[in-house]
């Protein structure tokens, strides 16, 4: 009986580990494949069956950098994402605090309004934005892009922060108020330090969402403000078979986001189950 049980157990173990390895394989191979291709010498890229072992080279990276625009696009992405994230977090933190803690008329409708704004269809915002920005001569400017990214980053940040504020026990503020602190002081000196972690995660998410956007950028940017997502796209649009430089560009464009995600992975996984990123 115990013998049979043990062998049954080990079969389940083998099956589970096979599944685990298969899952790791399915989700990591495409990503690893991009990194591998970016390091392959040009002649080996179209080998069939594919070459697995080779001497890595940086020639694709050099070629990608020489094509120009990549470095500039990384700078553009950084400027646009940093500003739209910072502005969003600055207005979202007090708002989220109010929605999660304070009692006021219109709280429910305004909460719903924030949700609506988060769900608003990107295409529905893009069409009037394009029309207005072209009339104002603001196409291909940082201001135009940062402004439309606020529609992604603000509602998202408010929603995520609400859940983080809700985790902080209200007794602490009550105690501060009894000690003579004003509401604002209690918020600033008691709640804010405790919410630091949540604010950090929210900042990371807002940044990634802004960095990853393609739709708004492809319509509203131009040669001066083109971010990385548009740059990678342009790479293949020009020539379908330049896999080497394309993958090198993709690695450089996604590098910052992947680095952030790996450093903060535990927090990001937690945040994901709370709010989820935009797809």
């Amino acid at each position, binding site marked *: 009986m115990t013998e049979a049980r043990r062998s049954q157990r080990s079969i389940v173990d083998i099956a*589970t580990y096979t*599944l*685990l*390895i298969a*899952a790791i394989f399915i*989700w*990591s191979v*495409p*990503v690893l*494949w*991009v990194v591998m*291709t970016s390091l392959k010498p040009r002649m080996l890229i179209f080998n*069939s*069956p*594919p070459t697995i072992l080779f001497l890595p080279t940086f020639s694709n990276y050099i070629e990608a950098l020489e094509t120009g625009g990549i470095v500039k696009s990384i700078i553009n992405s950084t400027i646009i994402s940093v500003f739209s994230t910072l502005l969003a977090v600055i207005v979202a933190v*007090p*708002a989220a605090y109010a*929605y999660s*803690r*304070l*009692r*006021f008329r219109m709280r429910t409708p*305004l*909460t*719903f309004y924030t*949700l*609506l*704004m*988060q*769900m*608003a269809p*990107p*295409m*529905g*915002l893009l*069409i*009037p934005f394009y*029309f207005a920005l072209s009339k104002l001569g603001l196409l291909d400017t940082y201001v135009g892009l940062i402004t439309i990214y606020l*529609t992604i980053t*603000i509602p998202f940040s408010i929603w995520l922060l609400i859940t983080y504020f*809700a985790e902080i026990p209200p007794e602490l503020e009550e105690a501060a108020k009894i000690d003579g602190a004003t509401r*604002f002081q209690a918020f600033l000196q008691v709640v804010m330090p405790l919410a630091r972690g949540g604010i950090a995660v929210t900042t990371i998410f807002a940044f*990634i969402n802004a960095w*990853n956007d*393609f*739709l708004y950028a492809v319509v509203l940017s131009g040669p001066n403000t083109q971010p990385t*997502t548009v740059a990678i*796209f342009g790479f293949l649009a020009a020539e379908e078979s330049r896999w080497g430089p*394309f993958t090198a560009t993709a690695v450089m464009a*996604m590098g910052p986001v*992947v680095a952030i*995600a790996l450093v903060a*992975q535990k927090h990001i*996984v937690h945040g994901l*189950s*709370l709010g*989820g*990123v*935009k*797809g």
Partner: protein
Amino acid sequence: MSDLPSAAPFALPTDPRVRQTKRQRMGVAEERFAWLMISPSLLVLLLVGTLPLAALIAMGLYRIDLIGYRPDGFAGLENYRDMVRDDRFWASVWTMLVYTFTSVFFQLVIGLALAMALFRPLKGQGILRVALLLPMILAPVAVGLTWRTLILTPDYGIIDAFLQMFGLGPYPWLTHPTLALVSVILIHTWQWTPFAFLVFTASLHAMPTEPFEAALIDGAGGWQRFRDITLPLLRPVIVVVIILRTMIAFRAFDAIYSATGGGPGTATEILNLYAYRISFTSLSLGYGAALGTVLLLITLMISWLVFRLRQHNQ
């Protein structure tokens, strides 16, 4: 409300300590303070969110062709009349529904099955977490481009390279109408099944153990425990995942646009892509805005559902 890791919109504070009954006097100071705190975000959202959406609805009533012979001007409901007769519009709605429901279905089933199967102490969980995290944080446009080239190119892509070991293929993954739709659904499912997996795993961890112990004593089998205990307990989370993923699938653009561009022909042209082509390729902003308004209506309906659900959970 249980301690489930529901998505943010479902988790407004329910802490009774914060709640006050209406009979209690609302502090005027608190009211004023609250408005002070929310007004910056409200102001910005009104300006960059609500105003454009109002403009969208208005633009839908105009004819605005940046190229073309027809003069611009007020058109009333003409755009909507055109829409009803527009076969390509209806086709794009249908494609959007197929795309959304199949990809959400697969994300849900695969995500739940994996979460159940791997819900025990295993070595290598850390590696799995990293492997699952990466697809979700990558730009969908980079994912779409990678699949179009490295993965789905006939003969040279890794899928065909793999299938060739069994003497299969090559397949025209992105150039055959049906296969192209299958491919874009596959791409979306690949990128977002990890989300469902993570949420389900987190809620399995948060589950009470008592019902399972009781069921074991009663001699319930594995499937019975799953059907009678796990599934009912997971129900709220499943609903959350379905709604969130449906919403995201309706917004999908980048990955499809970069993988197939909506083609071949219009085989993978979901409503979002059609509205894009009308607005920014044909530059018919009026008709594009009318299509955008339809998308807005769909969104309103889903948001309302989410909101009702959130209140129900409270």
